[in-house]
């Protein structure tokens, strides 16, 4: 079943075509990746899908619903969450408060004026921290976390929204090899066990080929190749443009 359908999406910044006629489809339960060199338009693509940028033309359909150019909060409420490339967390709040905020928003409890927040969403927040491997840092101020833990928290916040579709923008950027492995194993588990549909971007080829079941190669805003890791690996255009330089 199709969960996401993108039709001929376009976005230009001044004269620069950041997204050029991109059509893309995802089925429920997929774990896929978008790859491409820096400036290929990966982040812009995510930004268009999540309402951060407005598309110039084209359509985005989520579960058959046209969500093109909806504001970010509405898209998030539908069940699309994202984790950012540069960890985008609440630096002055504790790790626990960070994930609780996402859970409270998901439970639509943020207009509650009179119940102390510390009494709400307790078990959900604790469980989520455990899943993300952050329990021991629960009461640490997020700004004091290590880079890797900040990225994990970023992912945990996205999961707090209980999404059906999850976008991860370079989820392992800045992580050590071990942290990368742990994070990607978690991503895989989320996909397998919780049937979360996940799309991620990545420039570490080992990660991409090790975890994604379908790859899409983006170059100068356009899709130039698509298919299983093996297919993409043997695709000549893709090799020339991207893999030739890096892998």
């Amino acid at each position, binding site marked *: 079943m199709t969960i996401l359908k993108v039709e001929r999406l376009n976005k230009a910044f001044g004269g620069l075509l950041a997204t050029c006629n991109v059509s893309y489809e995802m089925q429920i339960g997929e774990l896929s990746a978008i790859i491409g060199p820096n400036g290929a338009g990966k982040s812009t693509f995510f930004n268009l899908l999540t309402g951060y940028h407005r598309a110039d033309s084209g359509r985005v359909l989520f579960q058959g619903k046209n969500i093109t150019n909806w504001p970010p909060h509405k898209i998030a409420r539908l069940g699309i969450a994202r984790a950012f490339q540069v960890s985008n967390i609440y630096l002055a*709040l504790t790790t626990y408060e960070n994930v609780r905020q996402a859970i409270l928003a998901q439970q639509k409890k943020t207009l509650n004026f009179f119940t102390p927040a510390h009494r*709400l969403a307790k078990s959900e927040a604790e469980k989520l921290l455990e899943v993300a491997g952050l329990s021991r840092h629960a009461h640490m101020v997020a700004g*004091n976390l290590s880079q890797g833990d900040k990225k994990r928290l970023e992912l945990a916040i996205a999961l707090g929204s209980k999404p059906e579709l999850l976008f991860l923008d370079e989820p392992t950027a800045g992580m050590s090899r071990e942290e990368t492995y742990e994070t990607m194993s978690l991503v895989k588990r989320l996909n397998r066990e919780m049937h979360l549909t996940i799309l991620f971007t990545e420039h570490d080829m080992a990660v991409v080929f090790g975890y994604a079941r379908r790859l899409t190669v983006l170059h100068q805003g356009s899709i130039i190749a698509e298919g299983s890791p093996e297919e993409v690996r043997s695709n000549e255009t893709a090799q020339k443009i991207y893999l030739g330089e890096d892998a």
Partner: protein
Amino acid sequence: MMRYWWLGPILIAVLLLPLLIGEFWVHVAIEILILGLFAMSFNMIFGYMGQLTFGHAAYFGVGAYATGLLLVKTAVPLPICLAVSMVAAGIFALIIGYFCVRMTGIYFAILTMAFGQLLYYIIFQWYSFTGGDDGLQGIVPPEWLISASAYYYFTLFIVVAALIVMWFISESPFGYTMRSIRENADRTRFIGINVRQYMLINFVVAGMFAGLAGGLLGPFNRSIAPDLCNWHQSGVPVFMTVIGGPLGFFGPMIGSVIYTFLFAFVTGFTEYWPLTIGLVIIFVVLFMPGGVLGLAQSKLKIMGAKDLAPEEQESTDTETY
């Protein structure tokens, strides 16, 4: 609750105050409470939401005029006047806030100030309704509140009740949503929160508390003047909050104690009040950037400031995990 042991002695002292000091200082204490509530409402926008409003006197003034006009022209009982003050200020905050929450940072500050000045000039010019620059005279509180100490207890009751409500709001999911908007508005959008709408709600609630504070002022002074809405008056809660500390719940109230007391004390023997407060502000900004409460918190770790400024507190607590 052991963290709040210090509230007990303070409450007893505050209750006994009128028995211990002369009438002049009771008047000062009433002013501390009223302006403290005003500054606390300002800090809902400044400290919690992270936006500097420089037009908060507008809602203080609307509240003052609502109660003042009702007491002068009708026989409505004071508690109802105060409720009307809150609603009236809330309506103005809704209309003005609708435009202001589209901006952040310096543009938010300028826009709130511009709307505040607009309101000031309307009140200043509208002689037939507001009394113009003559203000409103003869705002007499009901018989049972004529004495200074009676009005003190009445104000204390209202202000404490308001602070309790504000405390609950600050600890509620809504309060944490305000912190999350202050910390990272973009992130907050992507977890499904309509940031503008929440900012507007907070703006209205803060305006209502400012209106309540304003309502208490008229019967206390027996008169009000349009200057209450002027931008000087908007600066008062800014000063108080900077002195007391914006990142702790009670910061603005502590700022009001210091500011209002100093004002009463200093103007008793010199006319150089602006110079004095200027020096105080410079001292605070240079040597205690977190205000008095920030200083007390880093030294004593009390006063319930943990949730808003967790950096110093939590980092030391968690080093041994």
